[in-house]
């Protein structure tokens, strides 16, 4: 998504990226970024919270008018309500290490089989 925004900017279209993966967007480098520190999935506000969503979109519009240089990031003031999701997402620890290794092995096996199937067709 950030790559698309960069292409639009390079061709004269001002953009605002709205998202929750701060490191990914900022490493890529975009003109304007509205960051909401939520679990991935709701970059425009909590589901069914129209007031919050409208406020976040409004901050994006403000940036179009007010940002004067690239890499302008604004963090919205909203909090998710708990922090459990931060550690839970893609967690790797002793409780799931073996299961993850097994899943990866099985997936690679399936991919090899699918590739062989395609070659046979």
């Amino acid at each position: 998504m950030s790559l698309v925004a960069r292409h639009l900017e390079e061709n004269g279209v001002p953009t605002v990226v709205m998202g929750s993966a701060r490191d990914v967007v900022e490493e890529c480098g975009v003109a304007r970024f509205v960051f909401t520190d939520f679990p991935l999935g709701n970059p425009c506000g909590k589901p069914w919270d129209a007031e919050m969503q409208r406020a976040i979109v409004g901050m994006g519009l403000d940036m179009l008018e007010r940002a004067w240089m690239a890499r302008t990031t604004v963090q919205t003031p909203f909090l998710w309500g708990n922090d459990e999701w931060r550690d839970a997402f893609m967690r790797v620890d002793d409780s799931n290490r073996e299961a993850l290794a097994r899943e990866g092995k099985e997936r690679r096996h399936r991919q090899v089989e699918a590739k062989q199937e395609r070659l046979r067709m």
Partner: protein
Amino acid sequence: MNQRRPYRSYVSYMDRSREYYAAQGYSQPYSWAHHDDVPFTPLRKPLSECRVGCVTTAGKMDAEAERQGRRKVRELYAMAANPAPARLFTADLFWDKGATHTDDVGSFLPLNHLAQYAAGGRIGSVSSRFYGVPTDYSQGKTSLRDAPKILEWCREDGVDAMLLSAL
């Protein structure tokens, strides 16, 4: 509330995904896009006269694919923005399915809110179409195939500024 923390608060998805896929036995980590230079285009006219468009990473609904539980084909698309779609396909995307949901399209694609801002005169209008871009493992495909097409649609629709929301 004033607090002290020995680590940054926001999640680093680059770190997290690298460690996760390493635990699954993938030895070669994904290389994320990085640029030192960043293009910037200022707004050329008052926002109240601008037509604003939206880009999403969510896909069009495919009832058949969903019913069969198979992966939907990822494709680039442009779709009518009014009325805003009641649902979009997100099951194949990378987002936190344990903590939240995407049943409310307004939480990731702000078409209805933009329409309200247009009605109130904050922006000129909302583009008649919004645009869907698949998140692709290949940065080359995104830059060389998808981004130019979005720009083309953007010009066809007279879009002056774009909001891009990534799940």
